[in-house]
């Protein structure tokens, strides 16, 4: 590639950059921002952590998986495959395993909070004192089949508003 043609291509590039198309107009941006507001107002923002239902299933998988590994290790030496204890198929056992959990302890605590001050809580503009806070829900569970204890924690964010205006 000779230097002259390379420079010419660079000139072409520079010329193209000077042809920069117009960006988003103010009107277009306002319309799109309205769409964003509508989408956001309809969105249900989920916690970063799975629901309690999902956590119980996760706990079941872990404990049942642990049982299968333990059984294989204890009974596997010198025995044929047919005599090994097989862990039940996880997909068919999740519901049964979920019911086999006993809740030993439940507690909830607040980790941090922020005073939001007076906030408009409805379209009429009524003001109410608000607070936002983050907290943790914890459950200590016992799987009755395996004897394993599982601790589940779920972080959450919430906002609280006074029942009447102050």
């Amino acid at each position, binding site marked *: 590639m000779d230097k002259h*043609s390379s420079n*010419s*291509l660079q000139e*072409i*590039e520079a*010329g*193209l*950059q*000077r*042809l*920069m*198309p*117009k*960006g*988003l107009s103010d009107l*277009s*941006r306002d*319309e*799109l*921002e309205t*769409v*964003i*507001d509508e*989408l*956001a*107002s309809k*969105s249900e*923002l*989920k916690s*970063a952590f799975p629901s309690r239902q999902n956590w119980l299933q996760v706990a079941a998988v872990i404990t049942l998986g642990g049982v299968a590994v333990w059984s294989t290790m204890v009974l596997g030496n010198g025995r044929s495959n047919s005599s090994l204890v097989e862990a039940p198929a996880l997909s068919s056992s999740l519901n049964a395993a979920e019911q086999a959990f006993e809740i030993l302890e439940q507690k909830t605590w607040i980790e941090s909070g922020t005073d*939001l001050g007076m*906030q408009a809580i409805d379209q009429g503009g009524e003001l109410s004192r608000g607070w*936002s806070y983050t907290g943790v829900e914890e459950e200590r569970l016992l799987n009755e089949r395996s004897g394993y204890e599982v601790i589940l924690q779920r972080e959450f*964010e919430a*906002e609280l508003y006074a029942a009447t205006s102050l």
Partner: protein
Amino acid sequence: MSRSQQKLADRWKDWLAAEGGRLLTYARQRTGSLEEAEDILQDSLIRLWGYQEERGYRPPDVPLAFSVVRFVAMDAGRKKGRRKKRDEKVIQLHDYDEHWLDPTLEEDEDALLLRKAVEGLSEKLREVITLKVWSGLTFAEIGTVLKISHNTAASRYRYALELLQRELGHLKEARNG
């Protein structure tokens, strides 16, 4: 709207301020019409919102956004039954009041010739020029959007520049008699 929803909306508005212009440019290159391009951008925004639900509704990555605009534009084109022949595309670029490339350079003859040369490129080459020069994507990002390797994207871009260089030369000769 709750406070968290408002924060989410603000993040997407910041994203729109940063990326909206170049997404619109790309949509205009795909359709030739400002009005259609704005519709495509709005449709794309709604689709992207849906896609990002699994990711906590965070604003999308740039290559994903361009890919969605491309898909929506192609879908819109198919629905309208528009045939994507090169000569029809060139005619459509002139059918509207506002040219998609900067009309403020009407008095710059060389710029006008270059714009004419761009219009004469095939759709594939015009697309890679749009994504590289006016949308600011890297060759790797262009490859992701167009589902080609980054080497192919770079080769296509270089080839487009060479064609423009040649065509500009011809146009200038014709102008100068």
